């Protein structure tokens, strides 16, 4: 009895999230088609959806699996640069086909990177794990800084640290030019595709969390030794969550990359990883709804603050600190709890009438 109740509560929660995404999509789609939207907000729709995917996928690692990862942007960049190469190599195909293949291959390669990095990383604990993920994020950025990729009629040429070593024919086109990144990317991402991907990611994560596997992952998070003695392999389940999260970040990166005509490895540095972590923490660790809302609000916030000109990022910093202080303050929390209870009482009373 109580189990089915719990399960239905969980699926109810999941449906709230799909609802949020679908409403988000429909509202903006209507606004765009009726022309009632500022071009500033319109231009941000795809990045917002991408950051939402980043946030929920990081939440899988930080919230569900309980590991602090500071290198999530690294996986995003693997997906992004893979997508740039794939879409350039498929130059003749139709745009939707290019986009889908780019996302799939980007996600696969990012997942592979996540798997390889997970082997050493997941042996560690706590802050040591955090610093190693940070280190891997920086290493990925550094390696991409040295990567040169070109395409000519013979196929793809890849060189490391020396653009001349690609040996391209005269008609070849450089796709990725080391630290200067990629230029001339064809912009084939669409808002619809980004939202579809977001919903897919949510389906995968929420079904995982409510499954046997998800409960195993959370059991490891709550008490590793106890879970291990129950016969759950911590390495296997942590690895599953980490790899899955990395491949989702890769998919987000692919959509993100194909929305801009240029992309540099520096974009995906430590600061971007932190930005996504801020979404997760502010939204509430483990809460997918929170991640979605926080990602949406915090991506738009700096744009809304443009009126402050120089003081913009200062205001952003103050908002960040204040929100953390308010939401984590025991006294305030207690008061809010009482307030919420009163509200609920009122609502239920109103319902009875």
């Amino acid at each position, binding site marked *: 009895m109580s189990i089915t109740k719990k399960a239905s509560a969980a699926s109810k929660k999941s449906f709230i999230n799909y609802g949020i995404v679908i409403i988000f999509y429909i509202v903006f789609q209507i606004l765009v088609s009726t022309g009632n939207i500022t071009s500033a907000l319109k*231009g941000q729709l795809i990045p917002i959806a991408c950051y939402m995917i980043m946030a929920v996928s990081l939440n899988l690692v930080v919230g569900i699996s309980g590991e602090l990862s500071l290198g999530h942007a690294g996986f995003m960049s693997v997906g992004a640069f893979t997508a740039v190469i794939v879409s350039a190599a498929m130059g003749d195909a139709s745009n939707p086909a290019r986009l889908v293949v780019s996302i799939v291959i980007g996600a696969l390669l990012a997942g592979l990177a996540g798997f390889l990095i997970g082997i050493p990383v997941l042996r560690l604990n706590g802050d040591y794990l955090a610093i190693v993920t940070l280190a891997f994020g920086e290493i990925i950025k550094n390696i991409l800084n040295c990567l040169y990729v070109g395409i000519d009629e013979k196929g793809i040429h890849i060189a490391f640290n020396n653009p001349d070593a690609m040996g391209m024919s005269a008609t070849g086109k450089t796709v990725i030019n080391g630290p200067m990144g990629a230029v001339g990317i064809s912009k084939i991402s669409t808002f619809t595709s980004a939202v579809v991907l977001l919903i897919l990611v949510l389906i995968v994560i929420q079904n995982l969390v409510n499954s046997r596997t998800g409960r195993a992952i959370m059991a490891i998070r709550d008490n590793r030794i106890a879970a291990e003695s129950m016969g759950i392999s911590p390495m296997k389940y942590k690895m599953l969550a980490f790899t899955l999260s990395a491949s989702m970040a890769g998919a987000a990166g692919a959509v993100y990359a194909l929305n801009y005509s240029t992309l540099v490895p520096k974009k995906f540095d430590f600061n971007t990883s932190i930005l996504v972590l801020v979404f997760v923490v502010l939204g509430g660790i483990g809460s997918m709804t929170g991640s979605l809302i926080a990602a949406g609000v915090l991506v738009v916030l700096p744009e809304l603050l*443009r009126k402050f000109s120089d003081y913009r990022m200062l205001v952003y910093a103050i908002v960040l600190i204040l929100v953390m202080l308010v939401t984590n303050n025991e006294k305030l929390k207690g008061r809010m709890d009482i307030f919420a209870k009163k509200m609920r009482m009122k609502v239920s009373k109103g319902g009875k009438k």
Partner: protein
Amino acid sequence: MKKKLLSLIMAGTMVMAMAGCGSSADAGAATGTETGTAATTDAGTGTAAPAGDGALTGTLKLGVIGPLTGGAAIYGNAVVNGTSIAVDEINAQGTGFSIELQAQDDEHDAEKSVNAYHQLQDWGVQAIAGTVTTTPCIAVSAEANSDRVFMLTPSASATTVTEGKDNVFQLCFADPNQGSASAQYISDNKLATKVAVIYNNADAYSTGIYQTFKAKASELGLEIVSETTFTDDTTDFSVQVGDAQSAGADLVFLPIYYTPASLILQQAAKTGYEPTFFGVDGMDGILTIEGFDTSLAEGVMLLTPFSADATDDLTKNFVSSFNSKFGETPSQFAADGYDCAYAIKAALEFYAAKNGGLDVTGMGADELCEILISVFTDSSFSADGVTGLGMVWDTNGQVNKQPKAVVIKDGVYVGM
């Protein structure tokens, strides 16, 4: 339940924070005007003037995009300040034509730059003087190309900025020109036989100049004995300077901006290495770094289109008004921004004179874009500015002007 509550509180706080922003936003904008950064300079005296006499009238909404915060903020702020001086001057002339200026921050990031561009579009921008740095400029110029918005970038010098985009023009030299001109100058004046190059390979500007310099140098028989690189975060140049020193280079070519250049000069002084240092336009500004020991820059040569110590009236006037408004000597970036505003004005006047007048108020950005393209690619159009007299543009959007070679003597530039 707790989590739900948490997100509720968070959402509530956010809404409140944003409401707060809304109410105090006016105050923020007002201070912005005063400091000149992100200023919305009010349209001056522009009232209706008789049309049909070849006169340029109306108010142009000009947007600037550049890094106003973050690590590259110095370049963006310089351009915005320079542009605002030009706009103030133009508006004070009272000819019936005025410019309304709005600057948006992009933090030297492509994503933010596209956001900034969209902000300008919402404001109703008619032409853009920007963006300041190269990578964001490539992203924005692709958008502007499909939206048909005219762009004149003051300082994004890579060829990829203008390539394949008929609406994008550069006011600064394209990178290849500077590299080959420098090699030519070094070879012609027999400044060195062994050359070392230190460049920033994370920067399109620096790498672009390096590549053309290298090609031209090997053509002219200059021997490059040391090539070392660094990236944006580098502050330790002991390895790069040490390599040039041990290779016995008698000239070090620095196709880089002046901040890292100042560090290289100090590192060289520390290790007692005294070659000739040869820079490009990014080196300009090295004498204005607050607290920099200018004696270290003694004998540094550079090719630059602008020097703040030039004695022509145009430069003198610009430097003095910049100094009185911002309390510092304008850098090359400021000069580029200044020239951008005047070049656009000159182009509009050129069109007005030919077509019996032009009133730009409320004109569509796309309409204006075609007009400006036609003028900039017109071979009889040329513009004068502090970075060069008689600047002309080719159909690729690249500018043609004369670089000046200067050497630093006793802390000031001296022409060579």
